[in-house]
């Protein structure tokens, strides 16, 4: 029975049932579902379960191994935290969409073949877009449509790749794929879109900061980490991922420094953190893959915590712009403290979760001799401390007091943040239980004198740099602005090109019509000239003239005949 039910279905079916329940019971019911799911995962045995035959193909809805389990556990935990955080919500659309979305992501993690993966992949897109549309403005409608178009596009690529791969290898099993074949490349791009590879990334920064307060917390956990899981399964050891990942860790931090919307700053840092995992997958050694999986696990928790704290700020003050915030530590001290725990975790301070996970990827890069990737990751570690570790708490809770006097975050939000913070510290202090969940045996020791001292040096001097820049007035102020990113191509350039193309066509049409009119006018004019009243051909001629014409014609004929 346990192994006859794909874990994702618990949440998907649960989301349908919850529609029928009265509001009070619905919340409790939703809260119990992820707990049931986690319990189920503890009971599963490794192997392939729930296989169904469809059109000669075997679909595997439940494949259990260590890689799928570690993502399964963290997805259920993230779902539970998000549900607690959204406890006060009365909006049925968000509740159902959030639950079904989490279920779809979990379903995808346990899918053993590419077709089932595709189905759940698309389901995550269709369910999650409602968390953006639930803002219920024209703006959110447009953003949701852009988001949906790109997400569904990724799914279409995945299905196309799967079909090509089926043709090439005669199998749809979701195992290692590699980029040696056309099908492999198509699927690689499909995964790359959801993992927010450089130049394919901008849907992330476009949509996540614009979802509802609670919706963003759901969104931050699933879609991108599902892509990380899929890359780890299908493309471990693909060297190009090291360079893609290195670029991913570096370029978003420049945007994060100048971005004003603090939830968008967090989205850029999400993008940067995904880069670390992508590098780990690209290196592909046991240490690196353990690093990628454990970093995904830790990342989901601290990123959710940071989005929750910024969501609480938005919920209470009505704004999330750095330029309009400051001094909130007086009104929201608990949120401030919890946010700082999230900030310390993402920055990789000793005793916090990032320290014991990110360092595995850095060590793996160094051990394999990728000095350039290692240096970029080190730079990105200092950079992430700058924008997520310092900028977020500093501009929201300290900086200049903007006079917001609001209440502390609602108790359910504080409980969710508290649980996430406790897990961040627990992993940082005692990483062994997390290490035991990882795909390969762990021989890595995070707490060595050298590691602690060097990490503290890096972070303390990065903080010193921030302090010096602030005191000298060189730090760029928070400004109300839009910063151009790759979405400029499809939000500005493409519509402009289409508009000018349409205008060209209409001008060409006008010109052709004008020529047509001129042509018709010319023909009519000529016809009128020869056939109109009083014209040459319409004149009445005397009979003698006709006889003379016939005479000349016949005379000419005779001459030609005799010659």
């Amino acid at each position, binding site marked *: 029975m346990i192994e006859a039910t794909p874990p994702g279905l618990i949440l998907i079916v649960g989301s349908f049932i919850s529609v029928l329940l009265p509001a009070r019971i619905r919340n409790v019911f939703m809260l119990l579902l992820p707990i049931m799911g986690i319990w189920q995962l503890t009971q599963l045995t490794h192997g392939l379960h729930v296989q169904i035959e469809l059109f000669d193909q075997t679909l595997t809805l439940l494949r259990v191994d260590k890689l799928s389990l570690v993502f399964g556990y963290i997805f259920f935990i993230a779902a539970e935290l998000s549900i607690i955080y959204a406890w006060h919500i009365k909006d049925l659309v968000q509740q159902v969409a959030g639950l079904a979305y989490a279920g779809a992501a979990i379903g995808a993690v346990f899918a053993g073949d590419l077709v089932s993966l595709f189905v759940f992949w698309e389901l995550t897109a269709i369910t999650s877009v409602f968390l953006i549309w639930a803002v219920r403005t024209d703006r959110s409608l447009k953003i949701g449509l852009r988001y949906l178009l790109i997400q569904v596009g990724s799914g279409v690529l995945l299905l196309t790749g799967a079909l090509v791969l089926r043709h090439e290898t005669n199998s749809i099993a979701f195992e290692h794929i590699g980029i040696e074949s056309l099908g492999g490349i198509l699927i690689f791009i499909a995964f790359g879109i959801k993992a927010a590879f450089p130049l394919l990334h901008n849907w992330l920064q476009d949509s996540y900061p614009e979802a509802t307060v609670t919706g963003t917390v759901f969104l931050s956990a699933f879609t991108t980490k599902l892509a990380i899981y899929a890359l780890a399964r299908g493309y471990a050891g693909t060297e190009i991922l090291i360079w893609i990942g290195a670029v991913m860790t570096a370029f978003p*931090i*420049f*945007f994060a*420094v*100048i971005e004003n919307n603090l939830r968008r700053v967090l989205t850029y840092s999400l993008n940067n953190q995904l880069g670390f995992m992508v590098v780990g997958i690209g290196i592909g050694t046991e240490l690196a893959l353990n690093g990628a999986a454990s970093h995904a696990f830790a990342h989901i928790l601290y990123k959710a915590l940071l989005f929750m704290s910024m969501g609480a700020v938005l919920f209470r003050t009505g704004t999330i712009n750095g330029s309009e915030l400051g001094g909130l*530590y*007086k*009104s929201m001290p608990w949120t401030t403290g919890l946010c700082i725990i999230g900030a310390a975790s993402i920055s990789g301070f000793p005793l916090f979760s990032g320290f014991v996970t990110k360092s595995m990827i850095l060590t793996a890069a*160094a*051990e394999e*001799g990728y*000095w350039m990737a*290692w240096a970029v990751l*080190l*730079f990105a570690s*200092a*950079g992430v401390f*700058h924008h997520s570790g310092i900028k977020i708490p500093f501009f929201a809770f*300290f900086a200049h*007091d903007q006079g917001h*006097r*609001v*209440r502390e975050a609602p108790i359910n939000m504080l409980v969710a943040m508290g649980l996430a913070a406790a897990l961040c510290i627990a992993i940082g202090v005692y990483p062994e239980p997390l290490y035991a969940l990882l795909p390969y045996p762990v021989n890595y020791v995070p707490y*060595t*004198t*050298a590691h602690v*001292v*060097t*990490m*503290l*040096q*890096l*972070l*303390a*001097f*990065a*903080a*010193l*740099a*921030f*302090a*010096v*820049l602030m*005191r000298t007035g*060189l*730090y*760029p102020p928070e*400004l*109300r*602005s*839009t*910063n*151009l*990113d790759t979405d400029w191509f499809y*939000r*500005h350039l493409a519509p402009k090109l289409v508009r000018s193309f349409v205008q060209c066509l209409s001008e060409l049409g006008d010109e052709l019509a004008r020529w047509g009119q001129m042509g018709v006018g010319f023909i009519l004019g000529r016809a009128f000239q020869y056939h109109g009243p009083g014209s040459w051909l319409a004149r009445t001629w005397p009979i003698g003239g006709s006889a003379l014409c016939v005479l000349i014609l016949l005379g000419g004929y005779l001459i030609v005949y005799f010659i």
Partner: protein
Amino acid sequence: MTDHEKLDDGAKRWLDRPGSVDIIFWILCLVCGVLFLADAFYVKHPHFEVEYLFGFYALFGFVFSVGLVLSAKELRRFLKRGEDYYD
């Protein structure tokens, strides 16, 4: 009494006092100094030559952080547009 006044207890916080931020800054400087010198007191196990450099991580952290912020600031010249640019 409005909601705003009720929520503002009016108490001056330690951070609001002039000089408090200076104290934090100098403590940070002290911590940095201690950490920099700490390099002399443990055995390194580096993967790369450059890590042998005294205070490498400290220098790397400072230099690249300043570089990051200043270059991001310059990027604003090219990337910054009005808030309603796409509307």
